């Protein structure tokens, strides 16, 4: 499973766009990139998943460059309720979702 590296923490203000970059230099051809969000005292929640280029849903966008060695989760116009830990995962769905340390995003008023 490709190892991922992401910033430990990020601070932002309400209404701003937050971009979290994840490095996965050893990503394999079959690996997908998936992001999860975890609020305190809750289980992780799927946000978005992609293989290449750009994926967008109602919550976030995921940008993946051509070499796929990194990816960027973009949260548009964050609010206080977006304060959470964000995890970047890379894998093929081989029965093992390996979570890294995650990025703690704190949104301030």
């Amino acid at each position, binding site marked *: 499973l490709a190892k991922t590296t992401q910033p430990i923490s990020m601070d932002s203000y309400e209404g701003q766009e937050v971009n979290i970059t994840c490095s996965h230099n050893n990503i394999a051809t*079959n*690996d*997908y*990139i*998936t992001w999860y969000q975890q609020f305190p*005292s*809750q*289980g*992780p*929640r*799927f946000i978005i*998943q992609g*293989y290449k280029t750009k994926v967008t849903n109602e919550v976030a966008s995921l940008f993946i460059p051509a070499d796929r060695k990194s990816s960027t989760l973009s949260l548009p116009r964050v609010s206080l309720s977006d304060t959470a*830990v964000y*995890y970047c995962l890379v*894998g*093929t*769905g*081989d*029965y*093992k*979702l*390996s*979570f890294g*340390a*995650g990025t703690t995003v704190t949104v301030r008023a």
Partner: protein
Amino acid sequence: DTAVSQTPKYLVTQMGNDKSIKCEQNLGHDTMYWYKQDSKKFLKIMFSYNNKELIINETVPNRFSPKSPDKAHLNLHINSLELGDSAVYFCASSQGLQGGTEAFFGQGTRLTVV
């Protein structure tokens, strides 16, 4: 309806006791997982089951024994509880093996061993 439900939500027990945590999913998924999240917030896979069959056992002590009576349930039994077992345990489920699997997590069981 809660997709993945765990019981109990909180569990406080003494060292040496045996306890169980139950997990049920109503999503029709064929794969279920147990994760442990320690005080440093690292989420570590413990077990995964596919169609009631154990697929992954990640260097978990023998005191931890998962049981899957059917595809919708994956229970975790812990014998001789130790202080280091204190953590939040999450159950999750997903469907299939397609590249990049979306997993659904339960709310977690906070286990405190005193």
